[in-house]
């Protein structure tokens, strides 16, 4: 019953854009965190997570995003989210993520942010 999940990432100037596709559960969250850790090891500190191709993020997946926000804070870096469906934006707000990470309509706005 597994759904295809894909994560890709690329540097854009000082940022890393992580594009996420599919259902974000615990395993998908760990994949995103792995990607974050790989780039921070290379010295990057500012991340944009693009959820354009994601329709569902569960609370376990979000708990891993919280871990990522904490690590970014420790590194004096930043996490921004973009291209959120209303349900994902609402979920992030309920869980308090929007107090610690900026939310943007588009990837371009997040990169300019």
């Amino acid at each position, binding site marked *: *019953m*597994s*759904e295809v999940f894909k994560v890709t990432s690329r540097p854009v100037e000082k940022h890393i854009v992580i594009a996420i596709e599919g*259902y974000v*559960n615990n*395993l998908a969250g760990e994949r995103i965190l792995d990607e974050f850790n790989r780039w921070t090891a290379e010295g990057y500190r500012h991340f944009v997570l693009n959820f354009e191709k994601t*329709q*569902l993020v*569960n*609370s*376990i997946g*979000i*708990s891993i995003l*919280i*871990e990522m*926000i*904490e690590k970014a804070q420790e590194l004096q870096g930043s996490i921004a989210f973009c291209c959120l*469906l*209303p*349900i994902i934006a*609402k*979920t992030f707000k*309920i*869980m*308090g993520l929007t*107090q*610690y990470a900026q939310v943007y309509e588009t990837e371009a706005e997040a990169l300019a942010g």
Partner: protein
Amino acid sequence: MSANVSKRIELEIPIAHDNELEATRVADQLATEIHLGPECLAEIKLALVEGILNAFEHSGSTVPKVRVEFAVHDEEIEVVVQDFGQGFDPSERPSLRPLQRRGYGRLLMESLMDDVKYFTSPQGTRLVMKKRLPKCA
């Protein structure tokens, strides 16, 4: 609130990774039939996922399945997640602090649905969630 049920669907879901998505696919089909709006559907699906994950992870059930029911009434849709675990005390709520990593499932369900109730005993827990349909068109 009318007790008339215009549509009822029941399914059993084996406890296994990602099987919660099986129930969301049924919700998708039901939403098409009753012309549920996409945002309302998305909220019901996430509440359903959280209810099923709680049952999978915390029920302590030796019966490796949960039962899910959808009932469409005149003015609301009712979503039930039944596990066969040990029950719990619904009055004990996890204390939440900023950036806490776990314990948000119940908060999400209660935020996304209009009514959430637990009927729990040592034989299992029946989670009953309701969403008012007039808000969902």
